[in-house]
């Protein structure tokens, strides 16, 4: 399928998810919200057809969870969702429409006064220290993700200026940063000496595009998946991972 048609269908899971996160931070104008709802519903409908990529399921689950977690941002779409019930939606579309139609109810719950019967300090003190440390580490890594990407590119640049010894193995000169976790797969930014790659560890044989240009894939040195050498471009770089007729756009930041 051509990228033009993908754009028309609007099945870009990465962009739809990113917009949902933007909506959580600040409730959108109604027009923008309804436009997004159509895209989310297109993902749900595609998922209701058989044999669709895993990426759709993971995206829709995250979208539904975001709607349920931040209902006030999506409440204005409740009437739109109610009207869509007449179209005999499939199970995944029902899940999305149910979340949107219930948004005003959940927003009302969120606006009520909390009956605080819980001893918060006691609850927090009861949590295992090692698990809290692991969660803290994940938050820290997430916050410093952009810096980690920057450092990876810096190391690639520094490696290019150094001589490479024959005895040096690739593993000694390799590091990586997780870009996205999509369904059962992972997109990883990998540096090997001075080269930077985007690696896909997961099912299927997706294609990777920079703009309209498809990058040439290679096999991964180990494990199942694909590897694409990243051309020298100025960052940020917007990429699209395309599997069947679904795109997932993501950014390698500046």
């Amino acid at each position, binding site marked *: 399928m051509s990228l033009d048609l993908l754009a028309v269908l609007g099945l870009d899971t990465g962009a739809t998810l990113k917009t949902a996160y933007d909506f*959580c931070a600040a409730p959108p104008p109604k027009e923008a919200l309804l436009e997004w709802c159509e895209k989310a519903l297109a993902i749900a409908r595609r998922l209701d057809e058989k044999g669709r990529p895993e990426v759709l399921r993971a995206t829709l689950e995250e979208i539904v969870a975001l709607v349920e*977690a931040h209902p006030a941002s999506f409440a204005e779409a409740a009437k739109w969702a109610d009207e869509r019930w007449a179209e005999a939606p499939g*199970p995944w579309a029902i899940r999305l429409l149910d979340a949107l139609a219930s948004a005003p*109810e959940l927003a009302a719950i969120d606006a009520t006064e909390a009956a605080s019967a819980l001893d918060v300090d006691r609850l927090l003190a*009861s949590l295992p220290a090692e698990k809290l440390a*692991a969660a*803290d580490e994940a938050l820290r890594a997430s*916050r410093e993700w952009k810096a980690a990407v920057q450092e990876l590119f810096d190391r690639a640049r520094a490696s290019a200026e150094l001589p490479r010894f024959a005895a040096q193995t690739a593993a000694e000169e390799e590091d990586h940063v997780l870009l*996205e976790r999509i369904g059962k797969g992972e997109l990883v930014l990998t540096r090997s000496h001075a080269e930077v790659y985007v690696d896909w560890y997961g099912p299927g044989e997706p294609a990777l595009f920079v703009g309209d240009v498809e990058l040439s894939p290679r096999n991964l040195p180990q494990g199942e998946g694909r590897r694409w050498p990243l051309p020298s471009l100025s960052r940020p770089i917007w990429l699209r991972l395309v599997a069947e007729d679904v795109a997932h756009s993501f950014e390698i930041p500046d």
Partner: protein
Amino acid sequence: MGEFAELLREELEWLQRRAVAFARDEEMRAELVQETVHIALERAPRFLAGPSRNPRARLRCLLVHAMKSARSRLLRQMRWTRPAEEPPDVSHAETPENTVRAKEWQESHVAAVRALTTPNIRLAYLAVHLPHELEFRDFEEAARFRRGGAAGLARPPEVAWELWRRAVEEFYPRANDAEWKRKVVEILRCEGPPGEVSEEEVARAIRNLDTQLARARARLAQAEDEEDSP
């Protein structure tokens, strides 16, 4: 205190509000919140990995997932059985064992409906499928939800409750019976005197009721999926 605990502390009030919608008594609410927090903490390292995308939104997302699992887990501990396509009719059970089994199923199913659905949807589902299980508090809670934008009850709860009691005594309600469904919407969803409501209004109200029933089934099925998943 670490960063995760700080973020969690800020979200605990919100989490408690959500717990109120799904658990009636205080002990159950506290248990639901604690279970949710423990599940969220287990999953946090994997869930939060990768690029930072609005950590607060992400944490709430994690808590929503965790609360669903906590509800399923707590229901399972209460020996919640999976909901059938249609509730069995206790009166049709012919042996004492069947009667006991059907009653146990009904109790666990009502517990699941009360735990997994919001007041409007709960009122619609119980009114149609398990009318004898409805209580006055269900009417009060559905009425309070009107400010959320979804009209669960068109009359004051006291008036609707009185009409409801009379209807349950006069008609023997049967699940999915078209006449009973009409009676339900006349009492719950229409403002005029029952029997004098326009056909157009009744048809619209039945469509709305059917939508809420589909949503209730979707939620119960979703919980069933989660219960089945490892």
